[in-house]
């Protein structure tokens, strides 16, 4: 891989990691709107690897654990943080919050508070692309728990049938809230379900950003070439609980340690350093740069006003339409 790209991958993963840590920090200061924040610490390689092969006008749909997806799709950190704070300057004017953040202009069609809620929407965006022959690709991110929703089945069947330009990226972190994969899925992997939709399915090491990027590149190329959808199962792990307040009683310390040792940010960084592609000084600069950007983002969010009460009634409908 091009060392420049490798550095970019590392820096993106680091940014996501630090962003999520910042979220936990400001959450504990009571700055965020509400309590529903699902950080993706441990899973950074997946959004990073996948979005690294997307063009700016490709589409993604995201989940309740979606900060990484949006950052990797080049979100503005200030507006993102402001949204998490529930401020008027946020991407959604404070109305959406973490679980509903979106930016159509960046091709981000929305996080979703409904597990599995985006399968249809992503598939429909891909349908429009196929119809328009606009060569865009849609990536639908989802957790392995979401794959048990009926609409997973309905959407993938149609995508397989119509050979739509979409990549279904399963972030299999082995737990849906407290429920382990082996107690929610009849199959051992999610990738093996792909056959039921006449699409290739592949298990990918979701802790290795290079592996994710490689698999995503193939799948995105297939999609762009009109050869149809792919199901990628990226095996990964969330290092923290499902959301704040979840002590993960359903996992063993050993299991957690096993996965933490495979930290995608650390291992990839170490590899780059070992291979002489990244110096420790560059690493430090990166950290510093990110720290600054996040401090700025938080300052922006902090200083931004809460939405005005008038705005409560705005944005329900497109005004002036339907007459």
């Amino acid at each position, binding site marked *: 891989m091009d060392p420049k790209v490798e550095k970019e991958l590392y820096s993106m993963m680091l940014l996501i990691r630090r962003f999520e840590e910042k979220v936990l920090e400001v959450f504990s200061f009571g700055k965020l709107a509400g309590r529903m924040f699902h950080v993706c610490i441990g899973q950074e390689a997946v959004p990073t690897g996948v979005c690294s092969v997307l063009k700016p006008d490709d589409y993604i749909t995201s989940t309740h654990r979606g900060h990484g997806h949006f950052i990797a799709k080049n979100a503005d950190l200030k507006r993102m943080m402001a949204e998490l704070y529930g401020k008027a300057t946020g991407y959604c004017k404070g109305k959406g919050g973490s679980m509903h953040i979106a930016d159509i202009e960046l091709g981000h069609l929305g996080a979703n508070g409904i597990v599995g809620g985006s399968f249809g929407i992503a598939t429909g965006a891909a349908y429009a692309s196929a119809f328009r022959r606009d060569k865009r690709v849609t990536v639908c991110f989802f957790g392995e728990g979401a794959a048990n929703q009926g609409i997973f089945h309905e959407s993938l069947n149609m995508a397989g049938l119509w050979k739509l330009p979409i990549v279904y990226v399963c972030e299999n972190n082995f737990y849906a809230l407290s429920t382990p994969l082996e107690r929610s899925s009849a199959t051992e992997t999610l990738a093996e379900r792909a056959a039921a939709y006449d699409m290739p399915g592949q298990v990918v090491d979701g802790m290795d950003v290079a592996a994710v990027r490689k698999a995503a590149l193939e799948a995105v190329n297939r999609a762009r070439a009109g050869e149809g959808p792919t199901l990628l199962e990226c095996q990964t792990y969330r290092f923290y609980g499902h959301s704040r307040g979840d002590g993960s009683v359903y996992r063993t310390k050993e299991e957690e340690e096993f996965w933490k040792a495979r930290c995608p940010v650390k291992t990839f960084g170490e590899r780059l350093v070992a291979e002489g592609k990244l110096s420790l000084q560059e690493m430090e600069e990166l950290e510093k740069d990110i720290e600054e950007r996040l401090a700025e983002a938080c300052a922006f969010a902090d200083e931004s006003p809460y939405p005005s009460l008038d705005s409560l009634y705005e*944005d329900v409908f497109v005004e002036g339409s*339907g007459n």
Partner: protein
Amino acid sequence: MREISYRQAIQEALWEEMGRDPEMLIFGEDIGLYGGAYAITKGMQEEFGPERVRDTPISEAGTVGIAAGASVVGARSVVEIMYIDFITLAMDQIVNQVAKMRYMFGGKVEVPLVLRTQGGAGRSSAAQHSQSLERWFLGVPGLKVVMPATPYDAKGLLKTAIRDSNPVIFIEHKLLYNTKGQVPSEEYTIPLGQAEVKKEGADLTIISYSRMLLYALEAANKLKEYGIDAEVLDLRSLQPLDRETLVASVKKTRCALVVEEGCKTGGVGAEISAILTENCFRGLKSPVRRVAGEDVPIPCSPVLEKAAIPSVDQIVRAALNSQKYQKQI
């Protein structure tokens, strides 16, 4: 003007709008070669191709989701749900996604989606093919709800609904498809959210929509025999609801009756009654009455089915009771 059927009116609206917007898509079960369960899209797949008139598997949730996704990225979409009863399968997509997306995303998205379906009883199709479920969408901000009763309204309103940048639930009635009415040959549209006085009158206002409007008009006719001059109001659109026309009519007649086909409890009539109480209380000469379906699932047997939904007689009787009540006051 020509006389055409409600079915033809809807067909024309779809054909014209498909012609107008080359990116418009239609999704639904058996809508292609077969033309749909009620033959609305007959011939359209041949004309516009299978990509634009897309037969879908039996996957209501996924289909609404796909149409929503296509709309969000700008391809105006119409979904046909064969029976409104099957909308139960797509409620998450409609209520949690389609309706809320614009608001949740801070006004940064448009969802130009029309969900066409048909409801109502009258064909002995039993409990899962006869419901009137429009009530569910009244309390879902972000959705518009349109229910035309005449061919003229069906065409004009559907065209507006399709051009609307907001999601619209467009509910037809299975027993209206063969009804006829005058429809201009020229292009026209009707704004959403405007009720219409279908018959003027002085003594009481009968408020209705969809198929029950025809019953209301018949009842108004019969009421003449009793010397009662009823005004008949067609809501046409439940969301937005034309409060002004509604309140103005009742302020004039000072007596109101709401007629709907669905179960009485928790229905559209309840909302209308509440609004009228809030806005016309002082003037009302008798309590707002509701004539509505019985609070039972729709039974299959035709004798029972008929008894489960309102009749013209029931409307007449309710109107007479309202008038009698006034005299007593």
